């Protein structure tokens, strides 16, 4: 092997390591976009009918979204608020972020647990992008909350909703296993309800 070839391969190895390092980290939605002020997510006051914690999961979901263990404790202060309320005016693009437990248009059924509709953003005068809405719907299946036991085929609503709210705030998926924004989680694993360093880096880079 010639000296030139060894140097070239070494350089490529270093570049590959750097690129691999960048892959194994958070990704922001493209184009990069942020809210002007902390969004207030209206959490459907009807709750999720098959959560048997006595409250249909609405309070636990709301509390998980605003928890200091999640996005609001990442280091940028409060970045998201949540209020249990009515979602009767639910409509895409109306400027009111909502979590609708009833999926009024039937968008999320079958193997869909939750769908977050994004895409509502406009360009600011400085060239950055402003989010003005994002809405979440859930299917009516297989949910549990921390207030009840979780069977082997159920999914904690707290963890999934903290993940979905991450998208609502402008974050994509991470390749870091265990991160809230890692794109896979197993049943009865509420790990995503608590953000990890990679998630915190993502939110702190945005806000």
């Amino acid at each position: 092997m010639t000296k030139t070839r060894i140097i070239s391969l070494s350089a490529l190895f270093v570049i590959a390591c750097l690129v691999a390092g960048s892959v194994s980290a958070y990704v922001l939605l493209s184009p990069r976009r942020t809210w002007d002020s902390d969004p207030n997510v209206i959490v459907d006051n009807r709750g999720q009918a098959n959560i048997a914690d006595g409250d249909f999961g609405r309070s636990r979901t709301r509390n998980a979204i605003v928890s200091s263990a999640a996005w609001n404790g990442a280091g940028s202060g409060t970045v998201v608020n949540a209020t249990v309320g009515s979602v009767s005016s639910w409509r895409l693009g109306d400027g009111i972020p909502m979590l609708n437990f009833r999926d009024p248009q039937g968008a999320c059924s079958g193997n869909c647990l939750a769908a977050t509709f994004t895409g509502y953003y406009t360009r600011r005068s400085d060239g950055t992008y402003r989010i003005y809405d994002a809405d979440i719907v859930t299917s009516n299946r297989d949910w549990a909350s921390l207030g009840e036991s979780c069977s082997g085929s159920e999914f904690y609503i707290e963890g999934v909703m903290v993940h979905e709210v991450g998208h609502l705030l402008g974050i994509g998926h991470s390749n870091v296993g265990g991160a809230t924004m890692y794109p896979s989680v197993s049943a009865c694993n509420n790990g995503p309800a608590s953000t990890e360093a990679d998630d915190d880096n993502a939110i702190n880079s945005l806000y």
Partner: protein
Amino acid sequence: MKRLSTVLFLFVVLATLPLGASTFVAMDRAELIANSEAVVQGTVLKVNSFWDPSGRMVMTEALVRVEETILGDAPSIVRVQTFGGNVDGFIVEAAGFPEFKAGQRMVLFLSPEKAGIAKVAGYQFGQFHIRKDKAGIEFAVPALDLGVNVVTKNGRPFARPQAVRLDTFKDQVRETARRSGRFEN
């Protein structure tokens, strides 16, 4: 050297892919078949996005010309609807939902029709693009994008589906259906 450059390029492309949202329970092929009335190979003829009658949601409808019915029965042209789309610049992103562009060839697992309109079973799990390699061999490439959050039952790790030669893929679909007691075509 050229191959290494290509690999590095792919790393960079993958690192900058735009991603979205939504959470789905993983579906294997047997589950897809169980939830499908038909499995078809076809070409997208036309795509149209519109507000649904309630005015709350943007939807997209694709007309797909069926080239081959792999399983079940389907008309020569199927109407497939999905959520999300672009209406006069109002864009609704719905990651993990099937997407269509005119001219695309694909294999679709179709859930039972309602009023002449089908949906893709399992969302992107039931959509496979048909692509050719340099030798002209056709592959069924899973449409499942990286923006999909996948949850698994019983703690099983999720393995993203891989591209398979199209003829092999169709054989596998028929064999899986046969094993589940579905003898057709």
